[in-house]
């Protein structure tokens, strides 16, 4: 069956249980963070370029730095 991009899937439960196991192990000082992040990327990673740039651009607009001020008309 094709996996929906949006709906939670039964596999998710297993992935999250694996995440909890790995984090618990790292909190105890066991395991390797580099290996964890490789697994994290392969499991929870999102591919796509420019996503963060777009996210930050929205924040920039909220600052109003680019707003142009209208000069008052001279009488």
């Amino acid at each position: 069956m094709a996996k929906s991009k949006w709906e939670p899937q039964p596999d998710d439960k297993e992935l999250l249980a694996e995440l909890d196991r790995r984090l618990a192990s790292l909190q105890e000082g066991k395991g390797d963070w580099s290996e964890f992040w490789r697994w994290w990327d392969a499991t929870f990673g999102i591919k796509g370029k420019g996503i963060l740039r777009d996210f930050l651009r929205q924040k920039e607009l909220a600052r109003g730095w680019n707003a142009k001020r209208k000069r008052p008309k001279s009488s």
Partner: protein
Amino acid sequence: MERQTQAPKVVINASVFLTAVLIDEPADARHGAHRLLQDVIAQQADAFVPDRFEDEVLGGLVEAVTKGRPILATPAAIFSALQRFMEVVTIHHRNINWRAEEVFQAALSWRVSYYDALYLVIAQKVGATYWTVDRKLLRFLRQHRFPDLPALDWIGDYR
């Protein structure tokens, strides 16, 4: 060298959490985000965020899974995975830890958005360093040298 006895305090912007899942973002920013998150999990850093943090991460995640492609887990699982890291941060609440008026005044004084100011006010209150992916914001704040700003840094330079 003297050993540090107290964990450093950090305020984390939502962009740092998003960087941890966006695998096509620059490696230096991603490595910094990873180092910070692992310090938070290992209790080698005390992390603080405002109560709107989770909403902001969720908003960014909606954008990310709409524009991008999750590798394996569903968006719901990716959010649950990020929540594992949110569980170990201290959340600062409006009217308990911060007031809208002071954030509003800070935003006007520092010439940033209300939501930028919210993170900065929390960093100022707890004496934390504010970590963000947003280089433009950092450049702006450093150029203006506002005297009452908290310490702030780009996530790629974390440790």
